[in-house]
């Protein structure tokens, strides 16, 4: 189907199903029950899942395939957000032109930055992209204030021109973003027994775009172009010796992933029409790196999983406070309960980043393939336990070590 083999079709269908039924899947606990705080099925969070999923899918096309570690991808996301908000201010509240402009501008930016940065590789490439991103961040904060509105962030106001729309609604409010009349914030709540499920128009728009983005990345992974990118990763020198110039390929990958980031930025602004410089800071770039690695760089589904994982736990973990902990451990004797709460306390709530950092270190150290590799290992282990046969290491992820005489 759609030029995919059977395995990939299944993967795509799984992603489609996950995205479409997310409002059900993420709300497994009845609202009002003690476990309801683990529900993640509210529109704002679901939108973030898919938007960061798109961002990570795009980052993975660059990092997963070519091995070029960019530490400045958030710049494209920020640029995308700014251009989308400008489109809302000047043209209309329809999200389509905003998202398109966000992609185009982010694409242009990545042509510029990619062309310069890709002249070097390895750590120099990382530092060049980092330098460019920090430059954009600093400029957005200071001199470019007329365009970016500096520290306050770019927001919609009542006196925006909006050529193809109205500056203000009849009630005198700022109009909301829409997709040909469907308001992005429109939410339909379905109550089934004790459960309640939210269906949000904005989420479904993002989800459909993410499925599309996932499909494109799937095709890129399976295309000759994708193979070339993998060749760049495994041995660029050999590629040069065969008379091929890798630059156009890496640049194309850089631009594609920049446009994915711009798309994510545009969607972010479409869901909530404001844009701030902090989206471009290098810690934001670090976040997408974390997502991709945690999920599994170079795998198809990994980045989406990583994005979902980080965003889910960021929201849920940061909500857990001491009261919740006391509830959990209430069955224990008092002294033990207090000790456990004391021990767990630094890792939850505000301390979520600590957990994330530790988790990330563990993943990089022991599980370089991320969650996907973890899943593969687990399933291999289970299979071995059942059939008692050695499946052998996956040839794709563990290339044979070349014998060497001296280190």
């Amino acid at each position, binding site marked *: 189907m759609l030029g995919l083999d059977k395995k990939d079709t299944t993967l795509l269908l799984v992603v489609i199903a996950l995205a479409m039924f997310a409002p059900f899947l993420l709300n497994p606990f009845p609202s009002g029950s003690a476990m309801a705080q683990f529900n993640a099925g509210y529109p704002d969070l679901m939108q973030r899942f898919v938007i960061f999923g798109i961002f990570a899918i795009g980052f993975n096309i660059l990092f997963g395939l070519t*091995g070029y*570690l960019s530490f400045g991808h958030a710049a494209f996301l920020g640029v995308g957000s700014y251009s989308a908000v400008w489109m809302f201010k000047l043209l209309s509240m329809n999200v389509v032109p905003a998202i398109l402009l966000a992609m185009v501008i982010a694409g242009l930016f990545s042509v510029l930055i990619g062309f*310069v940065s890709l*002249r*070097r*590789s*390895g*750590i*120099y490439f*990382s*530092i*060049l992209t*980092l*330098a*460019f991103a*920090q*430059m954009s961040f*600093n*400029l957005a*904060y*200071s*001199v*470019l204030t007329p365009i970016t509105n500096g520290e306050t962030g770019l927001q919609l106001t009542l006196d925006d021109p909006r050529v193809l729309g109205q500056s203000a609604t009849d009630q005198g409010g700022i109009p909301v973003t829409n997709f040909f009349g469907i308001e992005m914030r429109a939410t339909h709540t379905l109550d089934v027994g004790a459960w309640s499920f939210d269906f949000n128009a904005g989420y479904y728009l993002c989800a459909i775009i993410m499925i599309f983005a996932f499909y494109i990345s799937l095709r890129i992974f399976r295309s000759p172009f994708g193979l070339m990118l993998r060749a760049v990763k495994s041995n660029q020198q050999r590629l040069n010796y065969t008379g091929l110039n890798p630059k156009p390929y890496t640049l194309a990958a850089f631009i594609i992933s920049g446009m994915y980031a711009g798309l994510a930025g545009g969607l972010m602004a479409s869901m909530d029409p404001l844009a701030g410089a902090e989206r471009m800071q*290098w*810690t934001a770039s*670090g976040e997408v*790196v974390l997502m991709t*690695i945690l999920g599994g760089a170079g795998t198809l589904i990994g980045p989406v999983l990583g994005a979902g994982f980080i965003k889910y736990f960021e929201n849920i973990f940061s909500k857990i406070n001491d009261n919740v902990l006391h509830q959990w451990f209430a069955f224990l004797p008092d002294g033990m309960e207090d000790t456990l709460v004391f021990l767990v306390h*630094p890792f939850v709530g*505000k*301390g979520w*980043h*600590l957990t*994330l*950092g*530790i988790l*990330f*270190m563990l993943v*990089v*150290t022991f599980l*370089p393939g991320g969650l996907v590799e973890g899943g593969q290992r687990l399933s291999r282990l289970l299979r071995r336990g059942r059939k008692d046969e050695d499946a052998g290491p996956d040839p794709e992820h563990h290339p044979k070590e070349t014998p060497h005489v*001296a*280190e």
Partner: protein
Amino acid sequence: MDAILLQILNGLDKGSAYALIALGLTLIFGTLGVVNFAHGALFMLGAFCSVTLSRLLTLSFETIDETKTDFLGNPMKVKTPYVEAWFGPETGAAIIDWAVPLSILFAIPIMISIGFAMERGLIKHFYKRPHADQILVTFGLAIVLQEIIKYFFGANPIPTPAPDVFKGSFDFGVLLGFDPNVIIYPYWRMVYFLFAMIIIGGVFAFLQFTTFGMVVRAGMADRETVGLLGIDIDKRFTMMFGLAAAVAGLAGVMYAPINSPNYHMGMDFLVLSFVVVVVGGMGSLPGAVLAGFLLGILESFASMTWVKSILPGIDQIIIYLVAIIILLTRPRGLMGRKGVMED
């Protein structure tokens, strides 16, 4: 002329911090071949060493002073730091006042042991992994260290004053025949600069004039041959990691009065220090120091009003701009050695 001199002076203290951090980064990179993204966190830990010590020194007990009363007429509680009780009020107050310089002694063993623990516990396992993995794991470590500090000290900057003697500014211009109050320079920044020079000189002297340093330099040039000569180079490199951590920590200790320490100060400095290392040339110690001061001074020149009026925003981006130009025109950096990380 006076304006130029003032900017050079202003650039020196920031430049010293850059140079010290970059020196440590280069030491680690040159010896162990590891790109350490947690180096900024070490700088931050150093700054919090001085916060910790000044808190420890001001630990106090309360006594009730019957002679004084507060506004309600109750006897007033007086806090007396233990240090003042033990050493007498004057010596005690002086010790508290000198908390930041004293932290140097406090920080050295702590930072060296942190460095050892980091190298033995984590970095050791990453020598043969790609640079990207090293960047990632040390980035994770930096987040962890940062969050631990945030947990114990909170998110707000903690003012850590310098000793009273160094408060105020020195009128530098008078010495050189300018009008008074034209070129004034805070005493503590002068101290910081001198301190940085001493540390840098010390590190270079250590590498240049001791047998240990000679072996380390030999190991930096050709690790394999040194190993074949029967020298346990790994052990020495571990020590160099400890030294590098101590240098970063000391840079942080003394920087605390200039900029109140907060938990993310390390990250802010890290990005710039990496740029400094790259500009100076990966693996070149003199290059790191030179580039540190150069970029510090350039940055302060770029923040002059008339420069900003010609090129708005230049002060924000000058360092990155220089780095980009250098990386593209001189791939080896200012003083990079041939064959080190060239690609």
